[in-house]
């Protein structure tokens, strides 16, 4: 079952397993898998040194299809397993596949803590706003009033926004993509691979069986004008002609949609220099971008925020190296403190 791999020339094939992929035909997970398998060879990391970790749910079958090391664990707890793996062997490249139910419902607590600790792992959250593997109950990202098997009268829950949650948890890297958007997903994956710390990516993923079309308003080819792809240093522009953009309203401390060359609410003609440039090192801006409601605003995609700060595993490793420089003596330890001799 072992195939020959040329580490200098890694290919998509090197990351494919011989297992039949068992997602429903037409599922957005296929696109994500293909994008990941296509992009990972670029990272130059031998698959022997990569571990995919997951919890439970459709997205969590992901490791079985990646020819790397893999651990399909228990519901919601993948961040804790991944933490243990990374702490035990910091040389490994550790990736985590999760979903909106696994990561934000049962596993919300662990996601919070892995993000704030900044463990050097990469997290892909497939957000389809529904429970797929249990056959169609509403999830923590489902819209209020959603009618599902478990909510025939409409869900009373109010949803959580994954990227917003990541900001609340003090994540060091927050990004967003769409399952079928190969170009943006590849760009984001490259950035995640380079980031030292917890890199979080929310991927809007269509569940064609239980929540088909959930993201049609901005996911399809015809809805490209509803997508704002952010790039560090470049103006926050979107729309068919690229003339629409986001401007900071200094009175409300919020963002507003304006159009270059058109009058704003006060009648002033908007100039190109009014459009806010993206600054991915600015946490406040990233947080604002993550929280924009779709409809009045476009969906914001790409790397919303990235900062370099010490990692949890790195700090533990350094502490360990320092302590290890004076290797402990078991004999000395057992004899430490008050002892007495019986002749």
């Amino acid at each position, binding site marked *: *079952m*072992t195939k020959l791999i040329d580490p200098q020339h890694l290919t998509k094939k090197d990351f494919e*397993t011989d*297992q039949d992929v068992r997602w429903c035909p037409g599922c957005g997970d296929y696109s994500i898998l293909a994008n990941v398998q296509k992009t990972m060879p670029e990272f130059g990391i031998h*698959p*022997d*040194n*990569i*571990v*995919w*970790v997951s919890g*439970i749910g459709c997205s969590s079958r992901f*490791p*079985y299809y990646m*020819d*790397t*090391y*893999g*651990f*399909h*664990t*228990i519901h919601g*707890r993948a*961040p*804790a*397993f*991944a*933490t*243990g*793996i990374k*702490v*035990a*062997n910091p*040389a*490994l490249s550790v990736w985590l596949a999760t979903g909106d139910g696994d990561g934000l419902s049962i596993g919300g*607590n*662990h996601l*919070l*803590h892995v993000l704030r600790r900044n463990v050097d792992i990469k997290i892909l959250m497939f957000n389809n706003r529904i429970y797929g593997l249990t056959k169609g109950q509403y999830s923590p990202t489902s819209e209020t009033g959603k009618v599902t098997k478990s909510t025939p009268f409409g869900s009373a829950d109010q949803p959580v926004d994954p990227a917003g949650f990541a900001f609340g948890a003090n994540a060091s890297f927050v990004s967003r993509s769409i399952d079928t958007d190969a170009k943006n997903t590849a760009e984001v994956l490259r950035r995640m691979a380079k980031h030292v710390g917890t890199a979080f990516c929310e991927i809007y993923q269509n569940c064609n069986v239980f929540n088909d079309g959930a993201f049609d308003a901005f996911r399809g080819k015809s809805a490209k004008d509803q997508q704002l792809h952010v790039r560090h240093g470049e103006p926050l522009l979107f729309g068919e002609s690229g003339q629409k953009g986001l401007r900071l309203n200094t009175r409300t401390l919020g963002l507003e949609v304006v159009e270059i060359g058109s009058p704003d609410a006060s009648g002033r003609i908007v100039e190109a220099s009014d459009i806010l440039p993206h600054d991915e090192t600015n946490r406040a801006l990233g947080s604002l971008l993550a929280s924009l409601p779709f409809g009045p605003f476009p969906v914001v995609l790409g790397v919303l925020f990235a900062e370099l700060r010490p990692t949890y595993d790195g700090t*533990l490793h350094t*502490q*360990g190296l*320092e*302590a*290890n420089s*004076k*290797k*402990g003596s*078991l*004999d000395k*330890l*057992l*004899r430490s*403190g*008050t*002892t*007495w*001799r*019986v*002749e």
Partner: protein
Amino acid sequence: MANLAPSSPQRLSGAVVRFAGDSGDGMQLTGSQFTTAAALAGNDLATFPDFPAEIRAPQGTTYGVSGFQIHFSSEDIFTPGDAADVLVAMNPAALKTNLKDLKRGGLLIVNSGAFTAANLKKANYAANPLEEDSLSAYQVVAIDITKHTQQAVQSAGVSNKEANRAKNFWTLGLMYWLYGRDLTPTLDWIQSKFTKEPEIGEGNKLALKAGHAYGETAELSHFRYEVPKAVAEPGLYRNIGGNQATAWGLVAAAELSGRPMTMGAYPITPASDVLHELSRHKAFGITTIQAEDEIAAICAAIGASFAGNLGVTATSGPGMALKTEAIGLAITTELPLVIVNIQRGGPSTGLPTKTEQADLLQAVYGRNGESPLPVIAAQSPANCFDMAIEAVRIAVTYMTPVILLTDGYMANGTEPWKIPDVSSLPKIEVKFHTEPEGFHPFVRNDETLARAWAIPGTPGLRHRIGGLEKDYASGHISYDPKNHEKMSLTRAEKVARVADSIPSQTMTEGPDSGKLLVLGWGSTYGAIREAVRKARADGLEVSHAHVRYLNPFPKNLGELLRRFERVLIPELNLGQLSVLIRSRFLIDAKSVNKIQGQPFHTDELGEHIRSALGEMS
């Protein structure tokens, strides 16, 4: 009392002393210093701290009383003793809650300075017991320790509050005088402990010396005792508590296996001290992760095992319940893992600071599906060291999670321990799989049935494991009915084969056949052993065996049990080992149960032995 003073101390074979006071009075510290002094004097000893769950319960209340009992002797002893020969009560509440455990005629030392109207009321005394004859059954020495301490520490320049806090050292000084102990080790300890607060250190020293001097000047000589050295095997000794021994056993196992250890833990009483101790030992390749909850703690440990480290977690009561699902994953992915359960009173939050043995059936059976794993139990504080090493050995030899059961009583109790020669400890062999030829993750060792441990980063051994059932021959996901049965039987057989590498069941006291066998497990060891010894000294036909391997049992256990006419099983639960023994061996064992958050007394076990023998004759 002055005219009674004999010229030299009375010689005793042993004594039981209990210190009791407010939880802020420093009784645990007093007790542990007194213990060190007894150890240095060469006595055999056993201790039993008993404290409330509240850190500082309201002062003067009965539920805020903290106690520390020590039994020291010139003979072999195994328990902290039943009733106390000496009770030191620092306030009315301590007297109220502890007097019942003082032997009639025992010495009662009370701090009369704390017997104020307010404190008497808090302890529900209608009248001051020191002023009436309700204590006439005891030898009462009432001293205003508060006042004496304040006078003693005046010159150190400490505040009144700090002066009051030195009461325990004054008391300790008095107790040292009564038992002829050397002050030097405690003076040295104070010196090193209070380097940053020299005035407080000085105050404590003055208090200790003043208490000691008081014994002399107040002519308390007739209460002076001498407990000679115990006979012990030659060697270097230390005093050790169960949690410390567990942690050190784990450190030793990391050394003996040559593998780094990763502990995931979440603070919980009474297990936190294992985390505290292990977190100090990075120099031994030990990493501790204080996780966000009990579940994350065990999951991080399993992740570390998957990556090739020794994964460890330690918890108690509710924490154990939370780890259940993850233990199941470790069973089905067949990863080595040590789970230390320092049992406490349950169910739910139960009695966090009190002891119990009620998690045995949970350890053996408490998971979804057929999910066998090895369960072992330590029997005394020092034995935790050996059993922690055993837990790691079994886990890595058989690629399985192992539950090590200890409990609050042995975790916090202490006993002298002959420090082992490190070079004599057997190595633990860990071998990672590296050969790609014929590899799949569930390829097994023919003898142990352990699966291959192939860690991420190994060239050419990429594989996926998880909680879904795996195909016996390839390790891939399998829903095949026959395969599931084969895997279930294999997992069970693997755990059963642990019996091939554990010692046979031996006897602790008495012959290995006869009339009555008292069978125990866990921290009841000392009480049972002492009770059986006494009964045998009285000519009763009774033996004692103590089980440390609870799943699987030692191979000879069933046969051994059948050689006795009757088997008596005392447990601090409602009969859990009894259930196991009855179901495995179809033996009509008689259960003796206590579920009061407190250990067995030797005397109560003695009565059960007598009545069991009585029923038989």
